[in-house]
């Protein structure tokens, strides 16, 4: 461009080389993060039985890199909310989520975590998205293991395509 033409967008002067490197960096980091998920299985109810099934043979989340559960929020990045969350349990769930470091994702496992299930009463939170932001919802009461794996794969697609800022808010 000559010095007399103004840029298309006044705010940022984008450099093509920078954008190219940032996108490739996002792809690389996305690939690494999606295949090494450390779930924190916040198991409360019946869906926990399907979680046990999906973690072991023959469904096996280990094939997707999401096998090693870490029972401390400091070491995990995927919060799997498995089962009904009641109002008594809600502060505990929020505390665990707050203690996790970025980047973190939340998978709502089962219909009770998605929307309260068929417990529409004083005790159950009508969906954990009332208290936390959720990335993937896996409905089902309980969901079949194949559905859970589908949910994990959708989450992996989401992680692969999202922006991963590792240095500052631009890179």
């Amino acid at each position, binding site marked *: 461009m000559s010095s007399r033409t103004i840029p298309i967008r006044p705010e940022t002067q984008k450099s093509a080389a920078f954008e190219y490197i940032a996108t490739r960096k996002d792809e690389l980091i996305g690939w690494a993060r999606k295949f090494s998920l450390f779930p924190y299985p*916040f*198991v*409360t*109810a*019946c869906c*926990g*039985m*399907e979680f*046990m*099934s999906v973690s*072991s*043979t*023959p469904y096996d989340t280990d094939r997707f890199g999401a096998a090693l*559960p870490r*029972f401390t929020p400091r070491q995990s990045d995927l919060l799997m909310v498995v*089962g*009904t969350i*009641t109002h*008594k*349990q809600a*502060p*505990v*769930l*929020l*505390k*665990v989520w*707050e*203690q996790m470091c970025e980047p973190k994702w939340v998978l709502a496992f089962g219909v009770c975590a998605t929307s309260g299930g*068929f*417990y*529409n*009463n*004083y*005790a*159950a939170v009508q969906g954990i998205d009332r208290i936390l932001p959720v990335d993937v919802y896996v409905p089902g*009461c*309980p969901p*079949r293991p194949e559905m859970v794996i589908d949910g994990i794969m959708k989450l992996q697609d989401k992680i692969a395509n999202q922006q991963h800022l590792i240095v500052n808010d631009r890179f």
Partner: protein
Amino acid sequence: MDLKLPNPIRPAFTKSEREDTTIVNIGPSHPATHGTIQIVAELDGERILRADVHCGYLHRGFEKECEAHTWHNLIPYVDRLNYCSALINNFAYCDAVETLMGIEITPRTKYLRTLLAEYSRIADHLTCVAAALMELGAMTAFLYLVMLRDYIYEHLADLTGARLTYSYGRIGGLARDLPDGWLKRLEEILVQYDDFVGRVHGLVDRNRIFIDRMRNVACLSTADAVNWGYTGPILRSTGVPRDLRKDTPYLAYAELDFEVPTGIKGDNYDRYYVRMREMDESVHMIRQLVDLLQEKGQGPINVEDRRCVLPPKQLVYGEIESLINHFKLVMEGPQVPAGEVYVAHESANGELGFYLVSTGGGTPYKVHCRAPSFVHMGGAHRMLEGYQLADIVPTFGSINMIGGECDR
């Protein structure tokens, strides 16, 4: 984090009595406490002096929901009480409503319900033992038992349509009859059971580490157990053969030949072994029931009672009486005569009782579930106090606290 979160519980003690003890909070989001139990423990080094057990983190308002639904609509809710052996809950609830209505189920349903109750009991004990062993570090045994449990889930999915929460029992019978080839597959699974469980016995029973961690830990005497309300495998592990299937037989148990395994001193090892032996007895019962089903169990599965059983679809679409009957059963529910009843079945954890109060309508006035896990949590502190912090893991694994049942 600037968000101040309230504490949902009030512990029984917040200050230690002595200078050298610490108060530690375990749970409720903890792998060993099955995610819904919180224990506030006062520790003297590694030894637990006092333990205050808090449950209720999975209280989903089952009893309040019951008052807003018809008798039929509750069947999925009762499934989710003890979700590891959901069929036993279904059949106990249906039995209670049938008692109140004065219905006698057909022989085929009687044998099928008994067979499926024993099958569910195997699935529950497999889950309990698998989780307990995994928490001790025996991952191999966990994988074997969970794979076996998966066979059972898939097999029951062939029958009922769901792997875990079946909603298969109906007031007056069952939802549908056995598909072809189901009994043949059952025999294949029972043979696989012998193989896998035999391997787990080989890995664990005489394992020095396992015995050191489970023997003489969390001992319970019979008097203590009865005082604190324990029933089921925990009571039997203390040495008394109390089993509702033998003491007050219901369904087809009076016709079966089985033993009631008992333990010697009520410790964790005894509870583990009683459950393993109970699974063997259940397999033995299932084989007898398959024969009984062929001999004496032919016929319809649903009783011919239009008060609670839905009429066949051809009639519903063909004649007006069946259409109205179907409509009223679905919209208003089966009209159960006024009265109250308490019916208890022997579930995998102990005495599962349903106390139903009806004022003569299609919806219950009150449904109360006497949950064995809840009562067992009441006495859990007796099994934890005096033992070490690390013993909480196997003790909880051997109590088999199921959150859905405990908190309802």
